[in-house]
């Protein structure tokens, strides 16, 4: 507890962002290609345990088919489990579970345990990235550059995950193309 408090106190906001993104990647099956939307869904499921898909859909304003796909992905990667809904036999209640719960709790630790703050972080990062389907990899590039102020391409790459160098470069190049990241000649 004390160690955690000290760790948080000694961490800059840019570093906190990097650590939180790392925990979210862990929580989502170590897949850095996971969208920020998927991360938001996982946070929402943890915030409202036992929610049905329609309740999540209403809260997050996600299209039904898109949410179906994400929930299916989360289930296949062991992030969530279903339980029969005693109130309505046609729907199922969804709960976060296993390693996802542990990693998400670690991320929440940096937001004073507030799901709303974590959701806002994801929403605002998505707004910063201005992409249709921003990923946690994109978010990590932005957070690393925010922390470092300026960095060589290789330094940014080193901060990323083991998702394949070409994928990382593609993500970075897209951020340069869209003007989120600027490159000195």
């Amino acid at each position, binding site marked *: 507890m004390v160690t955690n408090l000290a760790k948080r106190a000694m961490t800059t906001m840019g570093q906190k962002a990097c650590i939180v993104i790392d925990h979210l990647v862990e929580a989502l099956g170590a897949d850095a290609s996971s969208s920020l939307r998927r991360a938001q869904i996982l946070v929402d499921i943890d915030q409202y345990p036992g929610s049905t898909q329609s309740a999540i859909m209403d809260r997050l304003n996600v299209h039904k088919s898109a949410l179906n796909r994400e929930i299916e992905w989360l289930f296949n990667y062991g992030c969530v489990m279903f339980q029969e809904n005693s109130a309505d036999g046609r729907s199922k209640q969804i709960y976060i579970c296993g390693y996802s719960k542990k990693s998400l709790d670690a991320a929440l630790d940096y937001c004073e345990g507030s799901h709303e703050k974590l959701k806002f972080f994801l929403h605002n990062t998505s707004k910063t990235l201005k992409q249709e389907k921003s990923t946690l990899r994109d978010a990590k590039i*932005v957070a690393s550059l*925010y922390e470092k102020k300026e960095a060589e*391409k290789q330094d940014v790459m080193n901060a990323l995950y083991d998702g394949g160098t070409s994928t990382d470069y593609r993500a970075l190049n897209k951020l340069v193309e869209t003007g989120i990241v600027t490159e000195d000649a």
Partner: protein
Amino acid sequence: MLKLSDTAANTFSHGLEMSFGASAANTIRFYKPETLLAANRPIDTFELAASMPKTPVVTLPFELSAA
């Protein structure tokens, strides 16, 4: 060298402040010694506090009031 555009850095910074910034619960605040003394005094010492003036006190800059 790579860096974030100013717009991106500002937007991202706003999110960080809202999500990870110091909240009222963990902000360290500093008070003047007399403020702390007043805050910690026992309840019965309130009787020693100056009574409310009947007419509003005219506050003047130090030089004028001294003259």
